[in-house]
């Protein structure tokens, strides 16, 4: 087995262990919140998933700038892989948020600034993925996608700041006064965040390798033709 494959396997194992620790921390270790009760435990997965989605769109943003500035297929591969994984995590942010909203606000959805800007972000990257599937020419596809990823990322700081700029009913846990969490809750959150970041790195590496394999298939097909 190659070193890269061993590294991938080790990362997958580490990710599984970290995820088990995160589940334990979120469901057992963290104390039950007084007002929301057990439902508050969604927070330990909802927020790390959101952070990973933002991180992933950030990676796509940097790689897209890299592609436009320097060219090179690798930048485009990373940008594509990161945008796709970011979209998976963004979908989870919206869906888990809706479940929390149903219990807390008695509605699945409300046009709150945080929710609306998150939905806009999801739609932008859905558009990005549709664009990637609809442009035949490789160079044009990579260039257009890079522009969309760069412009799309501008919504990330807006999503983050939405609860500070506008009136909102979304809870604010991290504000200018610090972190409004019990130490045990903060520990559970950090464990969960670490687990999702490790999972994200494993997924990103696997997805980028897959893009290289897809390129090899395309190259061999051209040779056969």
């Amino acid at each position: 087995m190659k070193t890269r494959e061993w590294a991938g396997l080790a990362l997958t194992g580490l990710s599984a262990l970290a995820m088990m620790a995160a589940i334990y921390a979120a469901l057992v270790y963290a104390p039950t919140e007084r007002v929301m009760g057990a439902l508050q435990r969604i927070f330990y997965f909802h927020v790390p998933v959101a952070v990973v989605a933002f991180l992933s769109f950030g990676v796509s943003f940097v790689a897209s700038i890299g592609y436009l500035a320097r060219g090179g297929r690798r930048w485009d591969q990373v940008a594509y892989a990161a945008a796709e994984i970011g979209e998976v995590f963004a979908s989870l942010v919206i869906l888990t948020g809706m479940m929390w909203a149903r219990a807390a606000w008695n509605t699945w959805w409300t046009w709150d600034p945080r929710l609306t800007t998150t939905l806009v972000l999801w739609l932008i990257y859905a558009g990005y993925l549709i664009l990637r599937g609809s442009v035949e020419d490789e160079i044009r596809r990579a260039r257009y996608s890079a522009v969309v990823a760069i412009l799309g990322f501008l919504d990330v700081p807006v999503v983050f700041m939405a609860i500070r700029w506008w009136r909102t009913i979304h809870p604010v846990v991290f504000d200018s006064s610090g972190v409004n969490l019990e130490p045990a809750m903060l520990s559970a959150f950090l464990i969960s965040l670490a687990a999702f970041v490790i999972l994200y790195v494993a997924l990103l590496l696997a997805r980028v390798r897959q893009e290289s394999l897809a390129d090899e298939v395309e190259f061999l097909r051209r040779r056969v033709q």
Partner: protein
Amino acid sequence: MNSTYLLVAAYALIWVFVFGYIAWLGRRQAWLQREVELLRKAIEGYSGRKAARG
């Protein structure tokens, strides 16, 4: 709606998405590897026939 039910549903949904995505990646990886092997064999076969003729 019961909040415990929603909590369980949220956690289940996360794992369905994550494992679903991993399964999709795995299937695609297997398909791509099969394609690479088939195409390499086709190219080797063609090169072998060409060498035999030449």
